[in-house]
């Protein structure tokens, strides 16, 4: 089986959204936690194993009018960080 580029959020991870649209991602199995801004929250909610990283970037640019030019690199780096922490996996190709 080959990995796709479709990230999928670890279902055990808790998204704690706060009043100011920032949030904490919390993995109860490891006690690991990561604070994230509203863009990160929007990315997190799109990691359903159906959207590719490119799809997610495209949707984020549509949602956030003031997204910087570096948004694709920043979003990709964010997803890689989540992957390293075990918060996200990449879906596998089903034949």
């Amino acid at each position, binding site marked *: 089986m080959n990995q796709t580029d479709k990230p999928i959020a670890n279902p*055990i*991870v*808790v*998204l*704690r*959204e*706060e*009043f100011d649209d920032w949030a904490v991602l*919390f993995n*109860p*199995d490891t*006690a690991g*936690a990561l604070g994230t801004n509203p863009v990160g929250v929007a990315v997190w909610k799109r990691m359903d194993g159906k959207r590719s990283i490119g799809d997610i970037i495209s949707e984020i640019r549509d949602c956030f009018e003031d997204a910087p030019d570096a948004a694709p690199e920043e979003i990709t780096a964010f997803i890689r960080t989540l992957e390293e922490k075990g918060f996200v996996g990449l879906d596998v190709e089903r034949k």
Partner: protein
Amino acid sequence: MLKAMRTPRNLDIDITARCNLRCRYCYFFNNTAVDYRDLPTGEWLQFFDELGSLGVMNVTLAGGEPFIREDLIPLLEGLVRNRMRYSLLSNGALIDDEKAAYIARTGRCESVQISVDGSCAAVHDTCRGPGAFEGALRGIRTLSRQGMTASVRVTIHRYNLDDLENIARFLLEELGLPGFSTNSAGYLGTCRLNADDVMLTAAERQAAVSTLLRLAEKYPNRISASAGPLAEGLTWRRMEGARRQNAAAFPNGGRLSACGCPSSKISVRADGAIVPCCMLAHIELGRINRDSLAEIWQNSPPLNRLRIRQAIPLTEFEYCAGCSYVPYCTGNCPGLAYTITGEIDRPSPDACLRHFLEEGGTIP
């Protein structure tokens, strides 16, 4: 106002009103405001589902003695299923291999705290009753067999003050624990009824502070405290140092800012009453499964009053008039302020440095 999170991050739950011991300085029993009864398993599991939906991260189960609940494993399963981590506060005696093995398997347990108040039964059992010391050691060993290290808490009182050196040696050298924490018998619950007998006098508190500061140097980073003589000794040293240098006020100094709990944490009594803190168990904010926890957290007037409390300047109080420590003081615990003075919005005399000095204490 103290900025609160959208929902509480942590909960303290008195999961039972039953206990196998009747300790003479227990903070839990003999509170006339509390209805001492247990809720059935289903009520708690329903509530844990609500906690999961709110993104609560950590729950501490206390009581009473949590291991007295026959349904402890199903209750813990409810926390695990709802993506939370948990801690347990225990006297150790009822921890068996089945429960310890389950707790270890979950991988979600932050700590199991066991109270050890003496280096031997003769000291430990003085205030906890016959067999309590053996029970505590049995609990520590049972956890150890399942690969867990107990978090030991030593509560200091008149009958173990002279045993502190032995306790440290016993816990850290003989049992080989990585560390332990300390506090002292506080003017709450059953302890209020036995205060003259068990609580430290000023001279005894002085001795406890000195001994614990010395032991903390002897065993670096292995003895901790967030309240009680060791915490007071460390804080008072900082306050006295700042006062002598006429230093700028501490960031939270000069206000009733000691308690940050209402910004991140809330409590539930064994009967299901939601309260700000187990030390303010008379303030009923609502009931589980009847009232929305999120609604209480965000809009409860008593809870918001506690959040505003930290803006109240100490200079408002006659009690603090002329005190040179005011810029470095946070007014101490609101729970003890209430039980000692009958008022929440005022400084607690319990850990007051000036009061300690006036009673003949000195800062080591």
